[in-house]
């Protein structure tokens, strides 16, 4: 096994709101090997996007450590942070909102090169060549170089977003719902593109999405989040074969399967969603959990390795609970 490219430990991000501290990301730890994809799934408000941004320091984490290529990047000053941007990048969800409407395709893709000083503004030929190469790599026709985003469809816009992220030649990419806003046929094109680029360029992805079929398709490992806490983490296949956490089970049972012969058994969730503002200690899913016990509310639960590389944070598992639970196959 190689050294992990990125290691996150105890990462927290709280937001100060008028009614108290919103615990968006609570004590998240994981490590990610080079050229692998970690999928992060969860429903809206579970903190998955905030996690991605906190790792990149687009939002300053409240506490924790982010080790990237052997250095804690949370200790970086502004100048080193700017250099770091060449090695860590992000692809955004909304290809309509993430591109400056007043900048052409060329300007958008050239912008990172100019900001980072890879090319000077005077070196128009070098810049143009770099942009054209990048466009070619992400499958954008050359004639679109002077187009503006509003003239293009969602799929092409998202290719611009990918090109902008890759033009600095990063090693690690946070992909924040990169295909959620796209139609299925376009979504498949972009997913394929991202897989090809991963192989060609040796990229490492943190792939954030709410779409479970997409995350299974692209990820090596999957991490399930609920209201800021990681509830389960396992290799992609195992999450689907053997989901352990009651929330993961409920989530998986709710996905509509595109096969009329597949009759789903729902794990129905009742009860109110816990507020992430100044939350009580303990499992945040407890109020909706069909298998809740008093132990769930005592303290925040640690992730326990139940089988090889399969972690879960639930009192039904682990040394304390000791009672192993029959799970769906």
């Amino acid at each position, binding site marked *: 096994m190689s050294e992990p490219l990125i290691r996150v430990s105890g990462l927290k991000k709280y937001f100060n709101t008028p009614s108290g501290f919103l615990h968006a990301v609570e004590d998240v730890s994981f490590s990610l090997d080079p050229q692998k994809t970690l999928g992060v799934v969860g429903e809206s408000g579970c903190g998955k996007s905030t996690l991605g941004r906190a790792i990149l320091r687009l939002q300053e984490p409240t506490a924790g450590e982010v080790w990237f290529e052997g250095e804690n990047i949370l200790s970086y000053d502004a100048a080193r942070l700017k250099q770091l*941007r060449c090695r860590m990048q992000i692809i955004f969800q909304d290809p309509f*909102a*993430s591109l400056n409407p007043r900048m052409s395709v060329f300007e958008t893709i050239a912008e990172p090169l100019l900001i980072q000083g890879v090319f000077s503004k005077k070196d128009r030929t070098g810049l143009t060549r770099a942009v054209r190469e990048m466009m070619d790599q992400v499958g954008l026709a050359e004639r679109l170089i002077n187009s503006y985003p509003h003239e293009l469809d969602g799929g092409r816009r998202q290719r611009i977003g990918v090109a902008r992220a890759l033009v600095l030649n990063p090693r690690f990419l946070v992909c924040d719902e990169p295909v959620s806003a796209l139609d299925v046929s376009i979504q498949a094109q972009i997913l394929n593109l991202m897989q090809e680029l991963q192989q060609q360029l040796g990229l490492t992805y943190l792939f954030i999405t709410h779409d479970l079929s997409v995350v299974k398709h692209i990820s090596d490992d999957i991490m399930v989040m609920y209201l800021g806490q990681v509830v389960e983490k396992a290799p992609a296949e195992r999450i689907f074969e053997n989901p352990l956490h009651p929330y993961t089970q409920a989530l998986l049972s709710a996905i509509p399967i595109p096969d009329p012969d597949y009759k789903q058994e729902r794990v129905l969730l009742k009860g109110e969603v816990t507020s992430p503002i100044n939350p009580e200690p303990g499992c945040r899913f407890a109020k909706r959990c069909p298998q809740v016990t008093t132990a769930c509310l005592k303290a925040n639960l640690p992730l326990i390795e139940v089988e090889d590389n399969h972690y879960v944070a639930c009192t039904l598992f682990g040394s304390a609970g000791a009672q192993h639970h029959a799970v769906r196959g």
Partner: protein
Amino acid sequence: MKMHMNHLPQTQTRKQRSLWQDAWRRFKKNKLAVISALFILLLSLIAISTIVIDLTTGNSFYRQYVIKQNLRGKLDAPSAAHLFGQDEFGRDVLLRMIWGVRYSLFMGILAIVFSTLVGGFIGAISGYYAKLDNVLMRFMDILLAIPSMLLATAIVAALGPGLVNVLVAIGIAYIPTFARTLRASVLTVKEQEYIEAARAVGADDFRIITKYILPNAMAPLIVQSTLGVAGALLSIAGLSFLGLGIQPPTPEWGSMLSNARTYIRDAWHITVIPGLGIMLTILALNLVGDGLRDALDPKLKS
């Protein structure tokens, strides 16, 4: 809207249009706004030519025909020799109107350019830096609490009447409006994902403000400024009418109107003509402003 912007024919290469070019195309369709813009352009050309004439003749033409009194033709009605008639001192009203354009229109524009720059700067800073927002905006609130005309009157009263003082007074009076306008749109644009994208590639605040925020936040300010010129023009005329603005014999439309009202029973034309001049110019500026708003607002795009 969704239907037509998503699709670019694959085979043909279309001429690429930026959003500004798109807006210009929409503006051109609004005939009233285009006519008004041409009218404003015509006035500007007139003002520039009067300035050129004054510079080349060393003001002799101005002294000879615009301000020199000719009491024999006092209050004469419009005629072939004097198309707009003559005023209470026998001066040609047409020439005075023509020479007056620069005071009314150009000073309006100058005052608004000043307050757009200052107000825009304050607005951009307070919209972008949340920490400065409160201080700057409370200060703007204080200015806003005083009616702009009253504020301008007070400033002129303190500094004394005169061209520059009027300019300063009106400029200051309009700052808070523009600061608020730009701040509001900066606040919206700041939350867009492309700002975060710029930050993710390492862009600094200056670059983000100038290259990402301002171009996308300018539209409401441009509209507001155009409408502001109309307001400023009216304020200049108003101040002059009250005797606080530009002093006679300078042919400013507002002071022409003010001096003429004594003779309204004997000579209607010397009141009506400057009045009409002010009215038409303001109407044109408002129509241009409306046209710009429609052209720049992507929500109305269909």
